[in-house]
């Protein structure tokens, strides 16, 4: 006997309704790193674009950072924790794989018994999470989703490796996604390149490693075109983009993506996120962290058309257009 199941009732669109972020107190300068490994401030600024990064001590965990950012996003949305029914944490640096972080984060914020799961798409994690949240709202699986990108990369850094220790930082950024009469989060453009799975990975000793030149080549050749695809999917032109927020991997990669988009018609006055200068590369946290900092600085305003582009280990990538809350 065939049974027909009742479909969930979704919303015509989804939108970001609040954002928040959290960083450790401790600021680590290039000069401090140069005392330990053979590097210097000028080289790091020129090659990577980082001036400082935030590093958490042993007393501050990934769950702590995620909870602080998530709580702020819920408050920013003008909601109470009980309004959230799903918590999704994008991370690749939980210090253990069982249990995941999302349930603990929800408990910490005071969200009672939400759907909760972690998602690992490395530096593209926030964009994967945002796409998943948007689809959950539109399909009726959830009413309000708290999406958090949180990383404690300092846990997996080899502080004696000058190639990686200068790049990464710790932090968390979050967005609450809720229903909307019209979509304010565009369709996601995503994909992966599993043939290059080895170019960003952890070593046998558990330290993060990357083949810098291969990653740079991939990012500067493939990400611009797929970012344009995300714009197309939203039914927009590159000239419609007010704010470009790529994953804060390397300032040179960010500049290359911006240059390629401008060659395709994006405006000269398009604001381009450069939060990496102060925050370092925080993997899945970098996009919401940059967004929160840029909004606080008045560089992004409510209603702005933002292009979010995440890319990293896997290799995997995802991007979408979203309106600033």
């Amino acid at each position: 006997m065939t049974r027909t199941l009742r479909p969930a009732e979704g919303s015509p669109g989804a939108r970001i309704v609040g954002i928040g972020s959290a960083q450790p107190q401790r600021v680590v300068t290039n000069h401090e790193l140069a005392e330990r490994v053979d590097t210097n401030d000028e080289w790091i600024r020129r090659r990577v674009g980082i001036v400082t990064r935030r590093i958490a001590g042993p007393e501050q965990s990934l769950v702590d950072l995620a909870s602080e950012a998530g709580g702020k996003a819920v408050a920013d949305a003008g909601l109470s924790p009980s309004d959230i029914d799903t918590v999704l944490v994008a991370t690749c640096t939980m210090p253990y794989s069982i249990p995941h972080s999302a349930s603990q984060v929800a408990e910490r914020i005071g969200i009672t018994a939400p759907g909760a799961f972690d998602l690992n798409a490395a530096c593209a994690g926030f964009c994967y999470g945002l796409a998943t949240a948007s689809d959950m709202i539109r399909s009726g699986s959830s009413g309000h989703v708290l999406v958090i990108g949180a990383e404690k990369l300092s846990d997996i850094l080899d502080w004696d490796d000058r190639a990686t220790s200068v790049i990464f930082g710790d932090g968390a950024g979050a967005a609450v996604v809720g229903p909307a009469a019209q979509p304010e989060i565009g369709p996601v453009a995503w994909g992966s390149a599993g043939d290059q799975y080895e170019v960003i990975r952890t070593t046998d000793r558990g330290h993060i490693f990357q083949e810098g030149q291969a990653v740079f080549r991939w990012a500067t050749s493939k990400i611009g075109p797929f970012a344009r695809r995300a714009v197309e999917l939203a039914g927009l032109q590159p000239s419609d983009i007010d704010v470009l927020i790529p994953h804060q991997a390397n300032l040179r990669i960010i500049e290359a993506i911006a240059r390629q988009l401008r060659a395709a018609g994006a405006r000269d006055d398009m604001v381009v996120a450069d939060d990496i200068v102060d925050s370092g590369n925080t993997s899945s946290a970098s996009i919401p962290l940059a967004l929160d900092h840029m909004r606080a600085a008045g560089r992004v305003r409510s209603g702005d058309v933002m292009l979010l582009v995440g890319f990293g280990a896997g290799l995997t990538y995802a991007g979408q257009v979203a309106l600033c809350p």
Partner: protein
Amino acid sequence: MNNEDILTDLAAIVEEVAGVDAADVTADKSFVDDLDIDSLSMVEIAVQAEDKFGVKIPDDQLANLKTVGDAVKYIGANLK
């Protein structure tokens, strides 16, 4: 496409990527020593040259292209 045409197009790419005046991009110039172009910019130039000329310039080949003339010769030899 002759070497002169390749040089003209390559110089435009170098100007766009590295901000070096295209007129300064001549065959005898060393990318690193004369034009102050670092290895990351060389990768970007290679990526754009691959698109423009339809050739493959893998990282191990890229390391051998010391001068603008080396690059022009390599591109010319690998054009389809």
